[in-house]
C-alpha cells in the first residue's frame, strides 16, 4: 500500500524531471511520458481505492521527516474517503486533460515545457490530497501555486500572460500568509498538525484552542480565499485564463481552485468550532463558519453577475467557476461539507468539460475567443456542440444531470440554515442559467457570425474523446453515490436508495428548494432564449445602461485595487526606497564608508617610500618602548 502511495505521489514529478532533463527537444516523447505517468497514476489510484476499501478506512502512514530537539516534523499519507474521492477526481480528470492537451498544444514550440509543467502540477496536487498534516498540505499548496504560475504565464512572451501569472502568484501569496499564520498558531496551541490528532484533540475538548479558535479558522480560511479565488482575492482567476485552455480546465476550474474547498472539508473540525475571540476582539462575535458561508455566497453572487456581461468565452467560464466555487465554500460554511465535496466532484466533471469544449471551439476558430464571432456550430462541430450542451445543462442544474443533485443539496441546506443564503443561492442558480444560456445561444446556435466560424471543422479525436468521456461523467455523476460516500466520511448515516429513488429524493426531502431552483433554471433559460437566440448583438447594455457597464467592468474591483491598495503600496515602496537610499545607504553606511576612506587617506601620507623614514619611526618607537619599560 505504501508503495502504491509513493508511486502515485512521485510518478508525476519523475516524469517532469525526465522531460526537463532529457526530452525538451522532443515534444512527442515528452507528451508521451507525461500522459503515460498521469494515466498510470489514475490506474494506481483505482488500485489504491480498491485496496483501501477492502482493508478498511481510514489508513494513515506517517514518518518523521526531521527532528530537532523536542520538535519533530512528520510527513505522511492519510487515505480516507475524502482523500480517495479527491484523488480519483484529480487523477481521472487530469489524465483526460493530459490526453486532450496532446491535441490542443500540437505544434507549439514549447510543448515539452508545457507537459513538464502539467506533471509538476499533478505531483503537487496529489501531495495536497494525500497529506496527513497541515504542514505538508502547505508545502504542496505552495507548489500548486508555483505550477499555476508557470502555466498561466506559459506564453510568457505575451505581456498580459506574464502579468496574469504574477497577479495569480501575488494574490495567492496574500492568502497563504494568513494560512501560514494559522498553521503556526495551531501548532503553538495544539502542538500537532496531523489531521487525525487535531480531530481527536478537538473532539475531546472543543475549547482546546481557547480564545484563538475563531482566529485560527479565519486565518486558515485566508489560504482558501487565495487558492479558491473567493472575494476579495478572486481577481486573479479571470486573468488566469491567459494560460492555455487545458490548463484553465485542469487547474483553474476542476482541481487546483477546488483545493481550497478540499482544505475546508479536511479541516472542518477546526472551522466548526463555536465562536471564541480574544477579549479585545470579542465584539466581532461571529464564528469562522459564518464568515466562510457569507464569503462564499457573496463570491457566488458577484461572479455570476459579472459573468452576465462578459464576451470572452473563457472569461464567462472563469466567472462561472468563481461562482460555483462560491457555492462550494458556502456549502461548507453552512456546516454541510458533504454537499461542498459533492458539488466539487460534479463541478470538476462538467466544468472541465465546458473548458475543454471551449478550447475545442477556440482551436477550430483559430484562437478566436469572442463569443460574438462564433455561432452556427451545430453542423460544423457536432461532437463539441453536444458535449458542450451536456456540460451547460449540468452546470445549470437540469435534472437528472449531475449538477442538479449537488446544487440542490446546497440550496436545500442553505434554506434550512438561513433564508438569506437560500435566496442568494437560488438567485445565483437563475443567473447561472442565464449567462450559460447566453453563452450557448450566442456561441453555438444561430448563424455563423464570422468567417472563421463558417470555416470551422470538428477537432481531432484526441480532443473529442476526452470530451465524450467527460460528458458521460457529467451526466451520470449524480448517481455515483458521491454524497453517501461523503456522508459516511462525516459519520452521517445515509438512506440507501436506488437510481429512481435518488432522482426523486430532492423533491421528497426538500420540495420547496428543489422546485424553486428548478423554476429559477427555467426562468433563466427562457430569458436567455428570448434575448439571445439569433441575436445580432447584446441588448442588455442599451436597456440596462450603467448597470450593464458595471457588470462588464467587473464592478471596477480591479481599478479599485489599483487605485487604493496598489497605490498605497507603490507610495510605501517609494518611501522605503528613499529611506534606504538616503538614511541607511547615505547617512549610516555612508558615514562609516567615508570615515574609513578619510582615515585611510590620512594614514597613507605616512608611507613616504623612503626606508630611512621607516627606520626613524622604528627607532623612535623603540625609544618610547624602552623608556616605558625602564620607568614602569
Amino acid at each position, binding site marked *: 500500500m505504501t508503495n502504491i502511495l509513493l508511486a502515485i505521489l512521485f510518478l508525476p514529478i519523475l516524469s517532469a524531471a525526465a522531460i526537463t532533463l532529457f526530452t525538451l527537444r522532443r515534444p512527442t516523447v515528452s507528451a508521451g511520458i507525461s500522459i503515460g505517468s498521469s494515466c498510470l497514476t489514475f490506474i494506481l489510484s483505482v488500485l489504491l481505492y480498491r485496496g483501501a476499501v477492502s482493508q478498511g478506512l481510514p489508513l494513515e502512514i506517517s514518518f518523521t521527516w526531521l527532528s530537532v530537539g523536542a520538535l519533530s516534523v512528520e510527513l505522511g499519507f492519510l487515505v480516507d474517503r475524502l482523500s480517495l474521492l479527491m484523488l480519483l477526481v484529480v487523477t481521472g480528470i487530469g489524465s483526460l486533460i493530459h490526453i486532450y492537451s496532446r491535441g490542443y498544444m500540437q505544434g507549439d514550440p514549447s510543448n515539452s515545457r508545457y507537459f513538464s509543467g502539467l506533471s509538476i502540477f499533478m505531483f503537487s496536487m496529489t501531495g495536497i490530497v494525500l497529506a496527513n498534516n497541515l504542514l505538508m498540505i502547505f508545502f504542496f499548496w505552495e507548489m500548486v501555486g508555483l505550477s499555476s504560475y508557470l502555466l498561466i504565464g506559459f506564453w510568457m512572451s505575451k505581456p498580459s500572460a506574464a502579468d496574469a501569472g504574477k497577479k495569480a502568484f501575488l494574490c495567492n501569496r496574500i492568502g497563504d500568509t494568513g494560512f501560514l499564520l494559522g498553521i503556526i498558531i495551531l501548532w503553538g496551541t495544539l502542538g500537532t498538525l496531523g489531521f487525525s490528532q487535531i480531530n481527536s484533540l478537538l473532539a475531546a475538548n472543543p475549547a482546546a484552542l481557547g480564545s484563538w479558535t475563531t482566529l485560527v479558522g479565519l486565518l486558515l480560511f485566508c489560504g482558501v480565499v487565495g487558492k479558491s479565488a473567493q472575494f476579495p482575492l478572486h481577481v486573479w482567476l479571470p486573468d488566469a485564463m491567459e494560460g492555455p485552455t487545458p490548463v484553465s480546465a485542469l487547474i483553474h476550474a476542476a482541481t487546483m481552485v477546488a483545493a481550497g474547498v478540499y482544505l475546508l472539508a479536511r479541516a472542518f473540525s477546526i472551522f466548526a468550532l463555536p465562536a471564541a475571540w480574544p477579549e479585545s476582539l470579542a465584539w466581532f462575535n461571529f464564528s469562522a463558519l459564518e464568515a466562510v458561508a457569507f464569503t462564499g455566497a457573496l463570491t457566488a453572487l458577484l461572479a455570476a453577475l459579472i459573468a452576465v456581461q462578459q464576451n470572452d468565452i473563457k472569461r464567462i467560464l472563469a466567472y462561472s467557476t468563481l461562482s460555483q466555487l462560491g457555492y462550494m465554500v458556502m456549502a461548507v460554511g453552512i456546516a454541510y461539507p458533504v454537499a461542498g465535496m459533492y458539488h466539487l466532484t460534479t463541478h470538476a466533471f462538467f466544468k472541465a468539460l465546458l473548458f475543454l469544449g471551449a478550447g475545442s471551439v477556440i482551436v477550430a476558430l483559430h484562437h478566436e475567443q469572442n463569443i460574438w464571432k462564433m455561432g452556427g456550430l451545430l453542423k460544423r462541430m457536432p461532437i463539441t456542440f453536444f458535449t458542450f450542451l451536456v456540460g451547460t445543462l449540468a452546470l445549470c442544474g437540469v435534472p437528472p444531470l449531475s449538477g442538479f443533485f449537488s446544487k440542490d443539496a446546497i440550496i436545500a441546506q442553505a434554506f434550512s440554515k438561513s433564508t438569506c443564503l437560500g435566496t442568494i443561492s437560488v438567485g445565483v442558480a437563475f443567473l447561472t442559467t442565464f449567462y450559460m444560456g447566453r453563452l450557448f445561444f450566442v456561441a453555438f446556435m444561430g448563424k455563423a457570425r464570422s468567417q472563421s466560424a463558417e470555416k470551422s471543422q470538428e477537432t481531432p479525436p484526441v480532443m473529442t474523446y476526452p470530451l465524450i468521456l467527460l460528458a458521460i461523467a457529467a451526466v451520470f455523476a449524480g448517481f455515483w453515490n458521491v454524497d453517501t460516500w461523503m456522508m459516511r466520511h462525516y459519520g452521517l448515516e445515509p438512506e440507501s436508495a436506488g437510481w429512481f429513488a435518488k432522482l426523486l429524493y430532492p423533491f421528497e426531502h426538500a420540495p420547496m428548494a428543489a422546485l424553486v431552483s428548478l423554476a429559477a433554471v427555467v426562468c433563466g433559460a427562457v430569458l436567455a432564449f428570448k434575448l439571445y437566440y439569433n441575436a445580432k448583438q447584446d441588448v442588455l447594455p442599451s436597456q440596462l445602461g450603467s448597470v450593464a457597464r458595471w457588470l462588464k467592468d467587473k464592478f471596477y474591483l480591479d481599478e479599485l485595487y489599483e487605485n487604493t491598495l496598489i497605490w498605497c503600496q507603490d507610495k510605501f515602496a517609494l518611501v522605503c526606497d528613499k529611506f534606504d537610499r538616503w538614511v541607511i545607504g547615505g547617512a549610516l553606511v555612508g558615514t562609516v564608508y567615508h570615515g574609513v576612506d578619510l582615515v585611510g587617506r590620512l594614514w*597613507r601620507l605616512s608611507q*613616504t*617610500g623612503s*626606508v*630611512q623614514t621607516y627606520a626613524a619611526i622604528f627607532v623612535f618607537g623603540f625609544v618610547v618602548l624602552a623608556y616605558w619599560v625602564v620607568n614602569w
Partner: protein
Amino acid sequence: METFESFLTIGLGHYLTVSVILFCLGVLGLLTRRNLIVVYMSLELMLNAANLALVAFSYFNKSLDGQVVVMLVVTIAAAEVAVGLALIVSLARKKLPVWVNDLNKLKY
C-alpha cells in the same frame, strides 16, 4: 678617590658605554647617510655594538651564553651582508642609483 679608581679600572660600565656610543653612531649613520653602502656599514656598526655589549656581559657574568648569541648575530650579519650587497651590486649593474632617497618606489 674610590670613584676615580673605579672609573679608571676598566669594568662593565666602560664596555657598555662604548657599545652605546657605537650603537648611536650606527643609528645616526643609518638615518642620515644617503649612500646605500654607508647605510649598510652603519647597520653593521649597530650589530657589532650589540655584540660588544653581549661579550662584555658574558665576560662579567662568567657565562658563555652571551658569546653563543654573538656567534648567532655574526652569522646573521654575514648572511644579511650577502643579500644586501647582492642587491646593491644588481642595482649598480642596472645603472640605477645607490642613493637611498632615490629608492622610493613604495611611496603612496
